[in-house]
């Protein structure tokens, strides 16, 4: 295959340049013969060199027999199609890192108001292990939300006054109040949400989607990540590319991080004084060397390297067009607010996410940090909400009016919940909240998710789940389902295991969330 052709597919898994089936140990001889036979037929049909390659192998093993011949000749077709027709083609995940308190945001608990400064009953806490930050507290005084809630939209959902804009799209949202996670500290909890596992090294959701479905637009990465400027900084967690790495999947499934400023993708521009044709010649040279190396050692990662060079070259044209907001009409700025003009803000990133969605990028993840309000929660959560509420509303609204929300799922949430009791001193206008993995809230909108509903319930203290618990694994299974993927079938053999985003513990698609 010609890697410089515009149809060159992102995934090296099926570009036919990898070692052939013949090279593999542990493959029954009969199967190898059969592969060879088909390959020979392909030559006969004049379809090109090693045309079957990995796509053919995937076909051989992954499809039912009648499809075999028919599927093989499609160059660049994804090796794995959705298991069933998808509802969502893309996702935009607004990751509220640090974890906004569910009590001030989506899990309305009116009865707490009467319990101000009362001790949380020991029976509710149930001897739970606490973090080092509150374990030494002698009291666990209940802190009701300082922010009020009012019914919004046709569905009459209670929405916090922190979100006057998001309240306007309340009917589009499916709010889940019964998520729970295994981790009580940020790093493992964020990893569990982004990769399904508390330990680093696993592929993130976007990488699984890229691996499972391939690209819609070969000129742009399939998976893009952006971090946002923070309106204030307290307890800011470090983010790093282990949250958006491809783990054991081929490196081209990792996210490309879009940065703010004049160089949205690092090292993408030609060095000063190097013309495009010189650059092209250099890339051709490097790729040639890589191909020779590949001929000798057969490591598929070499091909991943080649395709990364090609992707970078293509992005030299596609990224400037993407990041040029000059053709956005005034209505865009009215919707997203003035901050959307300032690169790197959450508002700017939300607008960028819409532009990425329009261009067929499958998975965009925007991180907004500094929701970790152990102290001064009322002040700081307001700063965060003010920074993000309008752009969040704008994104949902913009996708909807442009007809993109039907097949784009928007996901909003942090990595765990926060405690109903105050961390540190509780006063009528100040308190903090510690980490709480037993329950937290998120919302999803569009992309085949049922709009206007709430799922799951917690007790009166938003401490324990009393109805429809939903583990992170269930969230992941459900997201994959929206994309037409069965979480039990989307797997990759690594270290002797069929690795899956949802791992080996029980996980299920939550059908109640599906439109």
């Amino acid at each position, binding site marked *: 295959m010609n890697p410089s052709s*515009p149809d060159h597919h992102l995934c090296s898994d099926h570009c036919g340049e990898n070692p052939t*089936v013949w090279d593999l140990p542990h493959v029954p001889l009969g199967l190898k013969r059969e592969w060879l036979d088909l390959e020979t037929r392909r030559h006969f049909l004049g379809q090109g060199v090693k045309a079957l390659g990995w796509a053919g192998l995937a076909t051989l*093993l992954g499809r039912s027999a009648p499809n075999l011949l028919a599927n093989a000749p499609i160059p660049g077709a994804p090796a794995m199609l959705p*298991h069933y027709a998808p509802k969502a083609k893309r996702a935009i995940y607004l990751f509220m890192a640090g974890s906004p308190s569910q009590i001030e945001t989506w899990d309305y608990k009116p009865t707490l108001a009467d319990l101000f400064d009362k001790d949380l009953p020991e029976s509710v806490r149930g001897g739970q292990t606490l973090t080092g930050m509150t374990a030494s507290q002698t009291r666990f005084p209940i802190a009701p939300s300082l922010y009020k809630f009012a019914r919004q939209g046709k569905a009459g959902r209670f929405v916090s006054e922190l979100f006057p804009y998001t309240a306007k799209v309340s009917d589009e949202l499916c709010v889940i109040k019964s998520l729970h996670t295994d981790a009580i500290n940020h790093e493992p909890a964020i990893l569990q949400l982004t990769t399904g596992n508390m330990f680093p090294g696993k592929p993130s959701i976007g990488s699984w989607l890229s691996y499972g479905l391939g690209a819609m637009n070969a000129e742009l990465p399939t998976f893009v990540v952006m971090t946002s400027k923070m309106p204030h900084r307290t307890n800011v967690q470090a983010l790093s590319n282990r949250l958006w790495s491809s783990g054991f999947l081929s490196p081209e499934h990792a996210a490309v991080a879009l940065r703010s400023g004049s160089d949205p993708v690092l090292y993408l521009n030609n060095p000063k004084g190097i013309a495009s044709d010189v650059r092209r010649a250099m890339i051709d040279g490097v790729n040639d060397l890589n191909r020779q190396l590949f001929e000798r050692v*057969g490591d598929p990662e070499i091909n991943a390297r080649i395709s990364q060079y090609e992707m970078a070259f293509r992005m030299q044209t596609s990224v400037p067009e993407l990041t040029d907001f000059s053709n956005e009409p005034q209505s865009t700025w009215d919707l997203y607010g003035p901050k959307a003009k300032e690169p790197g803000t959450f508002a700017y990133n939300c607008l960028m996410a819409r532009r990425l969605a329009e261009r067929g990028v499958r998975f965009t993840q925007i991180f907004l940090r500094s929701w970790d309000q152990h102290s001064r929660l009322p002040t700081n959560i307001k700063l965060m909400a003010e920074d993000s509420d309008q752009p969040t509303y704008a994104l949902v609204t913009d996708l909807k009016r442009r007809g993109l929300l039907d097949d784009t799922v928007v996901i909003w949430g942090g990595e765990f919940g926060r405690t109903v009791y105050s961390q540190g001193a509780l006063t009528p206008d100040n308190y903090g909240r510690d980490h709480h993995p037993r329950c937290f809230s998120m919302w999803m909108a569009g992309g085949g998710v049922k709009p206007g509903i709430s799922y799951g319930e917690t007790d009166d203290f938003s401490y324990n789940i009393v109805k429809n618990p939903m583990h992170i694994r269930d969230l992941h299974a459900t997201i994959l389902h929206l994309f037409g993927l*069965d979480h039990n079938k989307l797997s990759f053999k690594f270290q002797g295991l069929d690795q899956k985003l949802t791992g080996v513990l029980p996980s299920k698609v939550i059908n109640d969330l599906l439109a």
Partner: protein
Amino acid sequence: MTSWLSRAFSVARFVRSGKAALFSVARFVRSGTAASSARRPSLLSRAGLLGVASLVIAVSSSRAEDTFFAQRVAPIFEEKCVACHGEKKQKGKLRLDSFAQLMRGGEGGGVVKAGAPKASELFIRVTMDPTDEEFMPADSKPPLTPDEVKVLEVWIAAGASETALLSSIKGAPALAAPQGPTVALAPDWHPRALQIAQLEKTLGLRLVPRSHVPTDGLVLRTASSPGRCDDAALAQLASVADLIVEAELARTQITDAGLTAIAAFANLRALDLTRTAVTSAGVGKLVVLKKLESINLTSTAVDDAGVAPLRSVASLKNVWTFDTKVSPPGPR
């Protein structure tokens, strides 16, 4: 052939040093596991089976494997029983990993009585009260689904044969198509695979199957190079027109003239014309699309007069007209 051999050697050498070979195997196996959906025996036997089957396909159209037992019954045992009744363990001295073993029976003798499901120990065990300690699968393992029970029932009732063809035994629930709609949205695209590949190549656009289900149709996808898709390109899609269920044409070069070609996409359900040069004059051509459910006209020159004819398309649920002259709200 020599190149195959030398490759095999170089990889074999590499096995010892590790990574590339491991990777290759991983990649190889995962393509298989990704598909273990079809509930067949183990990966390798399955691969072998496919291998044989597909070779046969290549030559003629009949397959020895098309028996009801192999296609419908064995997969159920494989998934839910063989862990305890197979090569490794033989609980109750029963094995269910082949037809012969099944017929040999277990501790208590035969477990299948041809023609009489209700008198067959095996059937009794999977249909009794699940709290009974004799209920199978034992140890609260996932029980058979009602469909699976039905499959066993019709198979035993029809004589519990190893060789009866799939088509000869009636009354079995359809194999759960992977959750997708069972309605065919378009003809099976496979017979036209070569044409599709050729069109993709010459026109620089993609015709992507919507899912594994061959009758879910194709997506006409242009996102990689919308600039290459114009009226002339669309006109060349006539031979696959009925396969296209979704047409993603945002930002392409198409004009009203191209809508003539689109009007021939008889199975089209979703059409995205965002930011194209189509006008009110052309949109009327689309009223012949009797299955159209959504049309996106965002940022086009279309106005009220243009969308009015679309009201006659009964299937239409969404018309998006943001950034056009259509007066809000757009017709629904």
